[in-house]
């Protein structure tokens, strides 16, 4: 039972991460390889604010969101003016750069030793000590994040993002600034990743650079792509399935040192196969219109409704 709860907590963290990348890749069409590092920025900021400055969980979370947002903006502003290929390279570079910060700014991050003894969150004297309590916290945050993101996508801004993904020149010709929309989307994505980072830091109570490498970025990308770009169902159900699959591996008699790379090989194979056979992922499809018009006698009724094809 404990294993299941632990799995569920990790799953919710990754659902938030997948959601953060979904806004960027699924809705705006920006491919970033730095999400692992941004996740780390959130985790480290939360960890530092709590261990060094005695912030409580909520304020540390807010701090993490702000710092991750700024880091994302710094990455986005120079590189979003250029083509998608350049941005991918720049995001790889950003990933390497941030990892370098985690490893080498030892005064702040404690280098490869990492930051230990991060306190569990405390609300009005109640410490979220047990795993079950933490699971409740994680699920609440995950639901809030998803509701927030889904509602953002239903707004005019969400429409601009989808249009930017399809054709930037059209967006510009209709009076909207695609570059600004992309920067906002990147910052938004970073802020959400920071929520996952804070949750992670509070649960594991220990952060070190090796959790936030380029392989982590690739893994989050895998989750979003296989789950289905643009699909919220893919972000949730897809992520849970994809995280759960390798757990089945643990039933096989394979040593730990082999299990990790074999799991990655499986994910890699899945990516290849999916891109050939079903590139939209398990649940993916293009995000559908947020507005469906229901005609009445005067043709003035319009309903904003969620419609998403599975």
């Amino acid at each position, binding site marked *: 039972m404990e294993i299941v709860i632990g799995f569920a907590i990790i799953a919710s963290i990754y659902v938030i991460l997948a959601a953060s990348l979904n806004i960027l890749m699924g809705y705006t069409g920006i491919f970033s390889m730095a999400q692992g590092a941004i996740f780390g920025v959130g985790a480290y900021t939360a960890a530092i604010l709590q261990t060094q400055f005695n912030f409580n969980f909520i304020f540390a979370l807010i701090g993490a969101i702000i710092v991750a947002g700024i880091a994302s903006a710094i990455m986005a502003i120079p590189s979003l003016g250029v083509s998608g290929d350049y941005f991918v390279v720049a995001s790889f570079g950003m990933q390497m750069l941030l990892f370098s910060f985690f490893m080498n700014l030892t005064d702040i991050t404690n280098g490869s030793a990492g930051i230990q003894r991060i306190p569990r969150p405390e609300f009005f004297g109640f410490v979220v000590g047990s795993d079950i309590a933490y699971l409740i916290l994680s699920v609440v945050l995950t639901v809030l994040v998803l509701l927030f993101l889904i509602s953002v996508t239903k*707004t*005019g*801004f969400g429409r601009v993002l*989808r249009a930017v993904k399809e054709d930037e020149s059209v967006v*510009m010709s*209709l009076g909207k600034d695609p570059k600004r929309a992309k920067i*906002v989307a990147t910052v938004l994505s970073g802020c959400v990743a920071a929520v996952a980072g804070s949750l992670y830091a509070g649960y594991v109570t220990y952060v070190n650079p090796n959790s936030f490498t380029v392989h982590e970025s690739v893994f989050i990308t895998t989750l979003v792509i296989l789950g289905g770009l643009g699909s919220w169902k893919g972000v949730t159900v897809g992520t849970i399935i994809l995280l759960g699959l390798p757990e089945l591996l643990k039933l096989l008699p394979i040593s730990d040192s082999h299990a990790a790379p074999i799991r990655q090989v499986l994910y890699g194979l899945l990516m290849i196969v999916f891109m050939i056979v079903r590139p939209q992922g398990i649940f993916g499809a293009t995000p559908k*219109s947020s507005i469906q018009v229901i005609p009445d006698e005067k043709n*003035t009724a319009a309903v904003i409704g969620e419609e998403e094809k599975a």
Partner: protein
Amino acid sequence: MILQLDSIEKRFGGLQAVKNCTFNVEKGKIIGLIGPNGAGKTTIFNLITGALKSDGGTVHFKGKDVTKLLPHQRVKLGLARSFQDVRALSEMTILENIILACPSKYAESPLLSLFRPDQVRKEEKENIQKSLDILNYVGLKGKENEMAGSLSYAEQKLLIIARLLATEAELLLLDEPTSGLDPTSLARFIELIRDLINKGKTILIVEHNVSLISEIADKIIFLHQGEPIAEGHPKELAKNKDLRNIYFGG
């Protein structure tokens, strides 16, 4: 004068695509831009809208120097264009294509949306209504929820006009809006264009259909090798043999 071009020029590597481009567009009129293929018509459009940066000269819109402004900024001032190849956003519905063009305070700022949800809803409702009205006006009634990608060719051309109307722009740059249309659709289009003028718009239109342009334009500018070489009423230019040779000849 709603639009004033002064000595606009553009070169691509070794090729001088546009040079000595000076002309004015009077408010409320239809001005035609014609010339043989490769004369630089679309390039001039790109220079007017800011999609391309000019190598020299100025563009004044409503008396204001817009030469350094980006395209979306010019649209906000009232200068919008359509594309020769339509460019409908095929993964979005027709209604969404039109709403996208509506000016919106909240469309680019999710933060504002967070703090003023009721204002956002109000603006969205207004824009939906406005877009529906435009959609009906251009003749796409009943197709709101259809994917733009599934429209017929003629319907896509109507979508172009709808989107431009939604931007509330006063000067509309139409890049070959009627190419490939059948006679019925063409007639409908001409009606629409004339109606736009009645609504107070100004139109600058690139066209290959010389008879069409002679019928609707108040003035024609003739472009050759990137340079305006003649300007005047369609009937006068039609009489000019040299122009005819340039256009149809070698």
